[in-house]
């Protein structure tokens, strides 16, 4: 993400059309232009007056191409300092990146472009109903309140209603028919809204979180069309009280059977509540009033806003209304009832029909089967001479079974009635009639019916609750598992993959996850429901959406208003402003429901946290490595400054002598001096070579460049290098196995062999032999370098591979070594995954043994 200063938003706000908002905007823009600001006109409504056209000609118009539609990409490309965009509440057509213009404006602001725009009072979400009730015209388009409240500047364009009426006389628009009273009312609303905003802005600067009152308002979400009005009213109340605002959805067990349209409407209502700054919560349970009351009690709700339908709707058994139940459950909470004129005459909790049909058939068959069984059993009982009471019990058992296996109360009711009727018909005298002679029978029938019905009802309720708790438990378990799993993982890739897999398991949808690598989306990882399926994913358009989500840190894709045409819904894996990656969920066919959405958000939160931990750990580790290598560098510097002096003194001294007194030396002396200079510089070259490797290892910079290498070639190369020094020793090489291919970084291993032979040459007497043997031991290649010198003491053996360890060896030429050679050997061999060790050679001498991994021997002709 690039951090540009956010642009400023200025809204020109009027209470009706044709009040001069656009004109005021142009005027302000003109002033800015005079000041030298780079102004571009992005979009102006088509119906402008001639006077305005003349004004517009003084500005640069954004090239809109053929479409004459505002194109955000062109605006971002042009990147002016200030852009004018009329009609903030405009809704785009389906193909645009954003559904709403205010979203486009938001993106422009995020890119550091200032925006001037216009809006009407009726286009503010929370005032829509109010304005509609005054004017009788309901605005189709609206902006969420926060856009208006968060604008940097709002300029109210005010005019006397009388003036407007005169001005509009000649026009014949809907607005021009408004009366003086209507206009005055609108003006008052607009003025009040501005005042509210000022108060809101002031309070925001005071303290962000503190609410002045202890009020907490709750609105219940439902899929009813009138629900939007309830939400808006509750939001207005919340603002007026300056209180917290929560929107609650109670998911009942039969929610899954709701029609698609109802679910869609519920989502829209949820989004509306979100826009109005509500906290969205979901609880599960069939007893709606109880769940609401319980939630309200636990969250400290003080006011509940309900629609009138909740008050009046009754169910056919004369059950209490929602309001009455709520009052009973939570007597201390205020309940506000909002009239919703356009109530749900046309709206019913429609269930998905096809599903119902199947269900009815299935449940019907099951019920009949159970009844047949019950009746047969009863007939058997009668033959055996059991009393009536046993038969009654059998029927009650039948009803209970029916309730358990079927899904609706109606079955238990029907079977209760049926069992009484059949009992009467078959088992009471007179047989095969619906009459009963026994005086006690009517009572028996009533009690039998009631018992059957009540047990049946309870069974159903219990079953539904069990189903719901199972669902909750399942989700909780997935959340918990995810949490556990993420805390165990190390490495970004693992975290990303585990997150994708968990969410795929949870939602049973195809998932894609991208990693944000320095502003680019990398490594898309797919977790598909059906792994073997040939799945099509449009990388181009999906990728653009995912990228947009990453840069803007917002949700987009299918089922949202931004990039709605793509297949996937994209969410950012983030902590605050830092986006770690982007998750895509296949949501084109069926959108996520609220609880799925919230659980996905929780998992993503966990994932982002895990990623942040991982990043912190990595940084810490890097810092530790840095400290260590810093330490090594200091040690090296100390060692170098001490040990390099000797050869340098010899080189510079000899050269100086030769330059100054070259003529006075005899040839033999000169030759000796040349040889000294040469030998000392060769010593330095060897040292520098080792030092370079050593620092590379310690820096962690050493990347092994392994490839398939022939061990014999490596040994050969080392011998070539060392041969000029080995004038006084005998070198024997034997390869026990032909063509031993090892997986190694040849240059480094050559250095290992060279160092060990070099040591042997240095520390063993002239005339002794050094043998190098390579062989295969199980699935490793082993290299032995044995000398026949004086051996190494056990004490020295322990430390011989330590850094800067030199032992007490008196070297022939009396020069101390740095103690790097063998340390380096060990580091290199370990980096290859091999081992290195030292042991005694019998009867005397030392053997160095190291191993290297073999390369899979597969040759291609």
């Amino acid at each position, binding site marked *: 993400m690039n951090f540009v200063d956010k642009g400023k938003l200025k809204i020109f706000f009027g209470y009706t059309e044709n009040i001069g908002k656009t004109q005021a905007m142009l005027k302000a823009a003109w002033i800015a232009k005079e000041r030298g600001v780079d102004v571009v006109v992005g979009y102006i409504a088509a119906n402008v007056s001639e006077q305005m056209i003349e004004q517009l000609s003084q500005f640069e118009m954004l090239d809109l191409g053929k479409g004459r539609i505002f194109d955000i990409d062109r605006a971002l490309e042009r990147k002016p300092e200030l852009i004018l965009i009329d009609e903030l509440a405009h809704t785009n057509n389906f193909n645009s990146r954003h559904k709403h213009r205010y979203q486009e404006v938001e993106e422009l602001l995020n890119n550091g472009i200032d925006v001037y725009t216009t809006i009407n009072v009726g286009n503010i979400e929370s005032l829509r109903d109010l304005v509609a009730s005054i004017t009788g015209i309901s605005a189709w388009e609206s902006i969420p309140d926060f856009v208006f409240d968060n604008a940097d500047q709002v300029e109210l364009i005010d005019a006397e209603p009388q003036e407007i009426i005169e001005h509009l006389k000649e026009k014949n628009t809907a607005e021009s028919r408004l009366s003086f009273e209507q206009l005055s009312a609108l003006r008052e609303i607009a003025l009040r809204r501005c005042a509210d905003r000022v108060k809101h802005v002031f309070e925001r600067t005071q303290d962000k979180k503190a609410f002045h009152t202890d009020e907490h308002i709750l609105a219940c979400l439902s899929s009813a069309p009138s629900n939007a009005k309830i939400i808006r009213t509750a939001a207005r109340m919340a603002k007026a009280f300056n209180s917290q605002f929560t929107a609650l959805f109670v998911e009942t067990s039969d929610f899954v059977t709701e029609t698609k349209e109802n679910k869609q409407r519920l989502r829209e209502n949820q989004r509306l509540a979100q826009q109005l700054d509500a906290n969205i919560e979901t609880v599960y349970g069939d007893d709606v009033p109880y769940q609401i009351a319980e939630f309200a009690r636990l969250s400290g709700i003080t006011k509940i806003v309900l629609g009138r339908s909740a008050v009046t709707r009754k169910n056919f058994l004369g059950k209490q209304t929602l309001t009455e139940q709520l009052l009973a459950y939570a007597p201390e909470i205020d309940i506000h009832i909002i009239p919703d004129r356009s109530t749900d005459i046309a709206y019913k909790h429609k269930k998905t029909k096809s599903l119902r049909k199947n269900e009815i058939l299935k449940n019907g068959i099951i019920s009949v089967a159970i009844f047949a069984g019950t009746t047969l059993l009863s007939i058997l009982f009668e033959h055996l001479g059991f009393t009536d009471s046993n038969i009654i019990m059998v029927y009650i058992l039948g009803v209970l079974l029916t309730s358990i296996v079927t899904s609706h109360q109606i079955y238990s009711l029907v079977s209760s009635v049926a069992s009484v009727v059949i009992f009467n018909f078959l088992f009471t005298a007179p047989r095969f009639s619906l009459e009963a002679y026994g005086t006690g029978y009517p009572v028996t029938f009533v009690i039998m019916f009631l018992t059957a019905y009540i047990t049946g009802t309870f069974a159903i309720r219990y079953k539904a609750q069990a189903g719901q708790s199972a669902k909750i438990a399942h989700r909780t378990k997935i959340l918990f598992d995810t949490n556990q799993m993420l805390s165990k993982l190390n490495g970004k890739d693992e975290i990303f993959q585990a997150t994708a897999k968990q969410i795929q398991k949870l939602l049973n949808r195809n998932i894609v996850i991208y990693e944000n690598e320095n502003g680019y989306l990398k490594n898309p990882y797919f977790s598909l429901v059906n792994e073997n399926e040939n799945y099509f994913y449009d990388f181009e358009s999906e990728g653009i959406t995912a990228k947009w989500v990453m840069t803007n840190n917002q949700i987009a894709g299918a089922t949202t208003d931004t990039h709605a045409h793509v297949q996937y819904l994209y969410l950012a894996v983030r902590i605050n402003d830092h986006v770690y990656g982007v998750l895509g969920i296949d949501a084109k066919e069926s959108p996520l429901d609220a609880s799925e959405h919230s659980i996905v958000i929780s998992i993503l939160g966990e994932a982002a946290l895990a990623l942040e931990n991982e990043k912190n750990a990595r940084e810490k580790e890097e810092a530790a490595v840095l400290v260590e290598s810093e330490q090594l560098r200091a040690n090296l510097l100390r060692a170098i400054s001490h040990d390099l002096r000797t050869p340098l003194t010899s080189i510079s001294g000899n050269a100086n002598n030769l330059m100054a007194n070259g003529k006075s030396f005899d040839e033999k002396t000169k030759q000796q001096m040349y040889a000294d200079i040469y030998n000392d510089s060769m010593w330095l070259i060897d040292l520098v070579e080792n030092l370079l490797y050593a620092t590379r290892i310690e820096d962690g910079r050493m990347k092994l460049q392994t490839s398939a290498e022939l061990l014999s070639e490596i040994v050969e190369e080392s011998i070539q290098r060392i041969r000029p020094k080995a004038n006084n020793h005998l070198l024997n090489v034997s390869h026990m196995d032909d063509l031993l291919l090892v997986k190694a970084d040849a240059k480094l291993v050559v250095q290992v062999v060279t160092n060990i032979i070099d040591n042997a040459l240095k520390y063993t007497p002239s005339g002794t032999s050094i043998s190098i043997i390579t062989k295969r031991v199980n699935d490793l290649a082993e290299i032995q370098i044995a000398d026949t010198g004086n051996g190494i003491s056990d004490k020295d053996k322990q430390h011989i591979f330590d850094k800067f360890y030199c032992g007490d060896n008196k070297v022939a030429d009396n020069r101390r070594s740095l103690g790097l050679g063998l340390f380096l050997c060990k580091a290199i061999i370990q980096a290859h995954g091999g081992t290195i060790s030292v042991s005694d050679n019998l009867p005397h001498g030392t053997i160095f043994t190291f191993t290297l991994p073999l390369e899979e021997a597969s040759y*291609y002709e």
Partner: protein
Amino acid sequence: MNSFQILVVEDDKPVRNLITTTLKANNYRYITSINGESAIMETASHNPDIILLDLGLPDVDGVEVIKRIRSWSNIPIIVISARNEDSDKIDALDAGADDYLTKPFSVDELLARLRVTQRRLALMQNSNIQESCYENGQLRIDYAKRCVYLAQEELRLTPIEYKLLCLLAKNTGKVLTHKYILTNVWGNSLDSNVGSLRVFMATLRKKLEKNSNSLQYIQTHIGIGYRMMRVE
């Protein structure tokens, strides 16, 4: 005076002096340049016989210099690199360099490389036309018959070994990188084939050097590649 003229491209003065002193002492003619641009100019105007090119030049990257010279000339280029990284040398060789030297290098080594290149040049001039026969010491390849003889005795080579040998023979004196050999013999340069290359090269060498008095035809350059040496 040696008839060969050598262009020395080296920005470091002491090293340049060392090289030119060595060349002078061995009767080579030489010209010098201290950066890439002038090296290209000198090559174009003087048409030297061999170029000794330092890779770390102040203006243009050495590999770039090779590429530009190679666009019009096949002058042998010996690369001198202070960097210990093999990848630089491989890049240079792949760009068209013939041989390389790593700093610090000995004077003898420098002279040896120059001689190899000289011989290669002489060979190139003598055999401009595609010959049907290749001879190197006791090694003889009859391209027409697809037969290889070592000391008059026919060698039995597998098709891959034969291809390898021919490739090396045609580039005698030049270091061929693994990548180059793989693309020219196997048709691709996948890492998975490196093992095969090693094995076939080893068997080929065994057959070549079996009874030839430890004469070395093929030189191994660890981490870089192989070279066919001209054997006297």
